[in-house]
């Protein structure tokens, strides 16, 4: 420690120019600019000190350029606003003058001084101190160069809802290669479940499915459904991503979506259909919905007999039907051989029969049974195995696409940019217990109603009660379930008012029922949204301003008998109302996906406290994240309707294109570096780096910073116990010099 901080401040070649900005009256009204300039003139190495009304103007910048060109200065201080505002401006001016742009230092006397200091005198003293600090520091600046890294031109889009679809298509249409990874068996997301979209009431499928098939057929898009991103490494422009293909038990490349397997499947038929919110049932092998993209079935291993029971059971109900002459002869020969106890030949023939006609398992099963009774256990088992192995779906598939022994596979891809469009989940209705969801059968969530009103839904568009047949005569729609609520989510989910209006319209239209909307405020900002609300007001839909207090079956009058009663304070009438209805619809809000935290970690991005992925800046960088090269689209960033989602997806695509199209990334040089001869390889820094930019060199056993990953946060620099880690533009020497500058003149 003794052989350091010997300061050689007197750099004879350092000539500092100090330019103090008035910023109109932003600075000048609080800081005595002239006094600061006079003060600066006496600071070490200062050769020019002057003031100007707007340093950021062309004329202001030109003063700097001219002073550098005429040799008066070779270090530049601008005392003005924040580096976020104009650091780049003045660095460019410095470079324009002909010296390294990093010989510039900014003193923030606006945000840090004039805007936040009450007394003019105090403000002037502060401004002087900051100018002195900058003057001291800048003499320790060194010439730095920006770094450039090549960019891989491929893009990964995570999530195949409308956001991911839009982003993928935009990028693919620009001629770039896109990998679209969707964890569900089909793309389409939530939008695929909707019947109509607000406020235009155009059919969701009509506008979505063409985009879905474009994705499927686009030569630049590699679509991987039922796949998930397993691991992400690398950095902007050069990400390596591992994608896990989950076990679908179908070869997605060869399946033609004929659904012969679905018809042949004899598995249980009572599995709640996820796509229909459990309002209908499906088989273990199924197509999520008719327009599923890709048009590939999937086998659900939790219900398929192959996985639950070890194989399809013999189907005794199946009829032999008309047998081809060839099959008849095979059967006859098999029986003959069997009678002759030539079991080997029987077995051979059995296999042949199975190959051409799996329905004949019954015959074979009987063979096996007889063998078993004869005590020929091994032969019986062999025949049985043949009977069992050939599952109905396997046999039925004309393309041989069913693969019940499929294993998980990992694809590794290289991409330059990543767009995250992982969407949202809806609030679980049962969490607001007072509304009785899952307690009263006729309380529905809005997503269930979306399926009911959908022409391709479980009821073909009939809106009926949970019994599956009764049309409701009165329906209550409760707004803000899981939104604007201290008990669940404080935020407004933005879409519920509008979709509630849409559902009110559709319910009214389809059933003629009385529809009651219970709302806190009607939030309809958006093109044509208020007009839609207006329209609904003229459709004899009731609006009751007041959040519903509860839904109950405790009736107090004859009129309420057999009904659900919604209790609410009508804040316009100023009274508590009881409204008996047949059906209650909970307009559930939007929430981050359950595994948002895991995804956040995987991609090294940030979340807001609610769990929405955090944009870099709410106004100026709404689709960027704090990790360069990773962008956000759609509701994973916050509740959003379809128009906003599509717009944001386009923006994310544009940002990704801007990154990959230029072919390289430019990196600020303010990164950390570890001086090899100073590092002892203690590894304190390795675990600390939030960007995993530090690794241990396996040969030299010292720490190494990858400048492409380093964001210049300085954590390792502060923590390095032996001072081996340093950061460009923030070396210890520069920081101490800056501190001394502040302290010396105040």
């Amino acid at each position, binding site marked *: *420690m003794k052989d350091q901080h010997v300061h050689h401040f007197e750099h004879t070649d350092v000539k500092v120019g100090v330019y103090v900005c008035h910023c109109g009256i932003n600075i000048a009204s609080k800081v005595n600019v002239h006094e600061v300039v006079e003060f600066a003139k006496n600071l070490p190495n200062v050769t020019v000190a002057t003031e100007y009304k707007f340093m950021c103007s062309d004329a202001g910048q030109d003063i700097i350029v001219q002073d550098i060109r005429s040799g008066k200065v070779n270090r530049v201080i601008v005392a003005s606003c924040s580096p976020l505002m104009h650091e780049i401006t003045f660095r460019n001016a410095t470079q324009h003058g002909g010296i390294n742009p990093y010989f510039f230092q900014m003193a923030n006397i606006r945000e840090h001084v004039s805007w936040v200091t009450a007394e003019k005198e105090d403000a002037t003293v502060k401004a002087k101190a900051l100018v002195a600090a900058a003057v001291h520091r800048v003499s320790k600046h060194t010439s730095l160069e920006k770094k450039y890294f090549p960019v891989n031109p491929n893009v990964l889009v995570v999530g195949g809802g409308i956001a991911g679809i839009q982003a993928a298509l935009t990028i693919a249409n620009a001629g770039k290669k896109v990998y679209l990874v969707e964890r569900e068996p089909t793309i389409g997301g939530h939008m695929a479940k909707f019947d109509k979209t607000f406020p235009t009431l155009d059919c969701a499928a009509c506008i979505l499915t063409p985009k879905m098939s474009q994705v499927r057929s686009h030569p630049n898009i590699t679509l991987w459904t039922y796949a998930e991103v397993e691991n992400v490494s690398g950095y902007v422009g050069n990400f390596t991503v591992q994608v896990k293909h989950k076990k679908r038990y179908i070869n997605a490349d060869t399946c033609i979506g004929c659904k012969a397997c679905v018809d042949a499947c004899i598995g249980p038929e009572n599995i709640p259909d996820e796509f229909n919110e459990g309002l209908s049932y499906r088989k273990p092998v199924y197509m999520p919905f008719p327009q599923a993209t890709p048009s590939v079935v999937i086998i659900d291993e939790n219900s398929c007999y192959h996985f639950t029971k070890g194989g399809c059971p013999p189907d005794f109900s199946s009829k032999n039907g008309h047998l081809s002459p060839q099959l008849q002869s095979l059967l006859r020969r098999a029986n003959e051989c069997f009678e002759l106890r030539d079991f080997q030949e029987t077995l051979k023939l059995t296999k042949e029969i199975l190959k051409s006609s799996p329905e004949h398992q019954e015959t074979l099963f009987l063979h096996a049974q007889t063998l078993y009774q004869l005590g020929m256990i091994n032969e019986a088992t062999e025949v049985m195995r043949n009977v069992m192995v050939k599952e109905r779906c396997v046999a039925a598939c004309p393309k041989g696409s069913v693969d019940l022994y499929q294993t998980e596979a990992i694809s590794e891809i290289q991409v330059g940019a990543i767009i995250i469009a992982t969407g949202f989940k809806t609030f679980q209705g049962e969490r607001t217990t007072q509304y009785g969801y899952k307690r009263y059968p006729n309380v529905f969530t809005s997503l269930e109603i979306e399926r009911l009103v959908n022409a391709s839904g479980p009821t073909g568009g009939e809106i009926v009660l949970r019994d599956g047949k009764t049309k409701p005569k009165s329906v209550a729609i409760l707004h803000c379930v899981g939104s604007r609520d201290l008990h669940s989510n404080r935020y407004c989910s933005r879409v519920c008012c509008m979709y509630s209006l849409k559902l009110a319209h559709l319910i009214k239209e389809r059933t003629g029922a009385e529809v009651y909307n219970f709302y806190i405020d009607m939030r309809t900002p958006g093109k044509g949204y208020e007009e839609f609300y207006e329209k609904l007001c003229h459709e004899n839909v009731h609006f009751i301003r007041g959040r519903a207090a509860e839904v109950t079956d405790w009736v107090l009058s004859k009129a309420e008998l057999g009904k659900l009663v919604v209790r609410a304070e009508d804040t316009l009438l100023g009274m508590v109302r009881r409204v008996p209805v047949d059906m209650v619809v909970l307009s559930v809000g939007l929430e981050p996906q359950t595994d948002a935290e895991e995804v956040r970690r995987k991609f090294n991005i940030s979340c807001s406290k609610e769990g929405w992925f955090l944009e870099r800046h709410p106004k100026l960088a709404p689709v960027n994240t704090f990790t360069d090269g990773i962008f956000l689209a759609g509701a994973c960033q916050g509740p959003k309707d379809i128009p906003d989602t599509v717009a944001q997806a386009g923006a994310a695509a544009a940002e990704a294109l801007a990154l990959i199209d230029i072919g390289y990334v430019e990196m600020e040089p303010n990164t950390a570096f570890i001086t090899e001869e100073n590092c*002892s390889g203690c590894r304190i820094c390795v675990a600390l780096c939030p960007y995993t930019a530090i690794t241990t060199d396996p040969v030299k056993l010292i720490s190494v910073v990858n400048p492409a990953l380093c964001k210049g946060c300085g954590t390792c620099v502060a923590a390095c*116990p032996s001072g081996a880690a340093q950061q460009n533009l923030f070396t210890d020497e520069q920081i101490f010099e800056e501190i001394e500058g502040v302290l010396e003149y105040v």
Partner: protein
Amino acid sequence: MSKPKIGFYWCASCGGCEEAIVDLNEAVLDVVAAVDIVFWPCAMDFKKSDVEAMADKEITAIFINGAIRSSEQFEMAELLRKKSQFVISFGSCSHEGGIPGLANLYKKEDLLSTVYSTAFSTINPNYTLPQTQTKVPEGIATLPELWETVKSLDQVIDVDYFLPGCPPPVKLVVDAVTALLSGNLPPKGAVLAPDKALCDDCTRKATKPEKLQHKRFYRPSEILIDPEKCLLAQGLLCLGPVTRMGCDWACINGNMPCTGCMGPTSRVRDYGAKALSAMASVIDLNDEEEIQKSMDSIVDPVGTFYRYSLATSQLHSAIHTNGGK
């Protein structure tokens, strides 16, 4: 031609540094053959007046160990500075204030009252304290004055080189003497030890995990220490990452964690702050309460992280930092 003259002096120290000279063993004979030892109160009979009688710069090199905390030590340090071409600050106490420097956590009155009154083994009903001047029948008897704070050598006189360690390792001492005799000297102010941390060539480096992460720390008495494995990886407060190498892993080889006697590298200003931040960095917890609990497993943080360097830390002491004489 006369041989170069060298001397050794001790201030507030334990005597271990003197022992380090003796530890040179046979090498000490080479030293003695090459130089004249002109001053070494610990081992040979010299008086202050002998030094005063010397010409300025007569001594080629003086090795001073121990911290400076009394008027006498200060006087001797100034005198030796005047008489010597090179002053070498020898050992942790002289280099950084050392363990005596921890006295800077307390006021002088508190120290005196502890030693002369409240200490367990003290019986001093009249609370008699040492005085700088005492009248006795023969005249006035004097004693040096105890300073308010403990100082390192370079806080009171100009120092040319530093030999770190508690005590300085034999090899470094030999190298330093050789360098002095050959005139092959580094720039003034240098610490005469390699400028890297101890982990660099540590015998246990291969067992260090890629990421060091702990829920708490252990004192050596709390666990059975694996004699092969990285001590920090075992949750011991091994200050090797923070501490200058050159000790040949004396403690590590004795299966004990590094306590930091060699001081920091040239790039670090405040050893204790770096040590604390390095060790805190290893704590892999997020909950504030748990972090607090984990940090509580470090008994005596100041004594741990500033064991040898409190006097030269940015804090210097718990009381006023100016003067202190």
